[in-house]
């Protein structure tokens, strides 16, 4: 009885199954027709799988790229490298404090690893006097400081001589000349301008003449000529390791008494 009973139910089930399979085939057929009607043929499963992998790998690379970017951002927030100019200035200031160890007033340091002092009259004369040749080094013998048109500006603060509030002082090189048979100096002419009062445009100018000394890296200018309104000289020491910054003093020419001081920068 059980077997008989179970047989028809089985055939019934298979009939239902058959029906659903047929419907699926129809659907597939329809889909196939639809696909056939589209211009491009459907890529094969293998191709799509390959495409899938390629896409995934690209996404992976993109993610790595983003990670690197955020790492780089983090790294850049750790601060940058030190400005080379700053390093040069600090080194120069330290060596200024150390002193050059040269005894004579007119001696200067050869530089380099082994200290050696020679007269500043031997610098940049075309003949090597330092054992390391430091006195003919192209940096040491740069004429840029005394180039015509160079101007050095700074805020002058007076400690004596004049009752001025701090104001701008400008030294402009107007002519420079180097004798062929006396190379260790450049003869220089210039103008010192004191912008005493910006509001009322009171400007005092002094005609200057003097020289640039390679060994001491010093620009020494005295007043000259009759049409001067002031009678101050200027001494600038280019002691910050480049040709663009100097430590300048406005002095009384005869006694070299310091009246004012300014940190000059090339403009």
């Amino acid at each position: 009885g059980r077997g008989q009973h179970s047989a028809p139910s089985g055939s019934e089930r298979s009939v239902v199954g058959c029906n659903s399979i047929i419907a699926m085939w129809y659907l597939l057929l329809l889909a196939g027709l639809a696909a056939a009607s589209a211009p491009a043929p459907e890529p094969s499963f293998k191709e799509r799988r390959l495409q899938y992998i390629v896409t995934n790998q690209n996404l992976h690379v993109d993610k790595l790229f983003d990670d690197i970017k955020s790492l780089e951002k983090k790294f850049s927030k750790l601060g940058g490298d030190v400005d080379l100019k700053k390093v040069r200035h600090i080194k120069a200031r330290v060596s200024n404090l150390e002193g050059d160890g040269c005894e004579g007033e007119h001696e200067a340091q050869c530089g380099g690893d082994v200290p050696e002092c020679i007269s500043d009259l031997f610098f940049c004369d075309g003949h090597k006097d330092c054992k390391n040749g430091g006195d003919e080094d192209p940096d040491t013998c740069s004429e840029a400081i005394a180039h015509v048109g160079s101007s050095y500006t700074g805020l002058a603060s007076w400690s004596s001589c004049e009752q001025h509030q701090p104001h701008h002082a400008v030294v402009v090189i107007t002519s420079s000349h180097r004798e062929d048979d006396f190379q260790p100096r450049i003869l220089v002419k210039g103008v010192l301008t004191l912008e005493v009062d910006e509001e009322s445009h009171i400007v005092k100018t002094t005609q200057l003449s003097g020289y640039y000394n390679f060994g001491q890296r010093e620009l020494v200018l005295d007043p000259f000529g009759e049409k001067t309104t002031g009678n101050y000289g200027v001494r600038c020491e280019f002691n910050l390791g480049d040709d663009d910054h100097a430590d300048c003093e406005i002095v009384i020419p005869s006694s070299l008494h310091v009246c004012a001081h300014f940190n000059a920068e090339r403009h």
Partner: protein
Amino acid sequence: MLRVLVLLATACLVASDSQFCCSAEDRHIVEEQWDTLWHDTESSKLKISFGRLLLLKLAKEIPDVNELFKEVDIANPEGGKFSAHAMRILNALDMAINLLEDPPALDAALDHLADQHQKRPGVKKEHFKKIGEILHTALPHVLDDYNAMSWKSCFKGILSKIASKLNA
């Protein structure tokens, strides 16, 4: 020596852009020497007694002045009223000296003092001249270092600026 004096006099005339002949160095000297008086905490005592002496001396030399200081009770110079006034005057002097480094500010402060003295009828230019003389005899007594040239050149300007708005 005469040549040096002539040179100094012409230097003062040439320096016309500063309001009076009192150079940067003069100002430094005056400030430094004035500073030596005020190292103690009881500086007000010193100021009061110095100011009192100054005013009483002026009143002695020019008796008319007594009338002008009646309001601050000059009849009773040890009293609080006159002591406070002596302090005021010495403080004004102190301010003027400490402003020597800043000419525009000094100018404004002295101008203000000139206004205040203009309001007092009876105050005359000769009184200030006398005060200058008294100061220059008194200061060397209290200052170990006293550069008369510097003090005179600076105080001439200060006092004449304060007296500049007076009629007589």
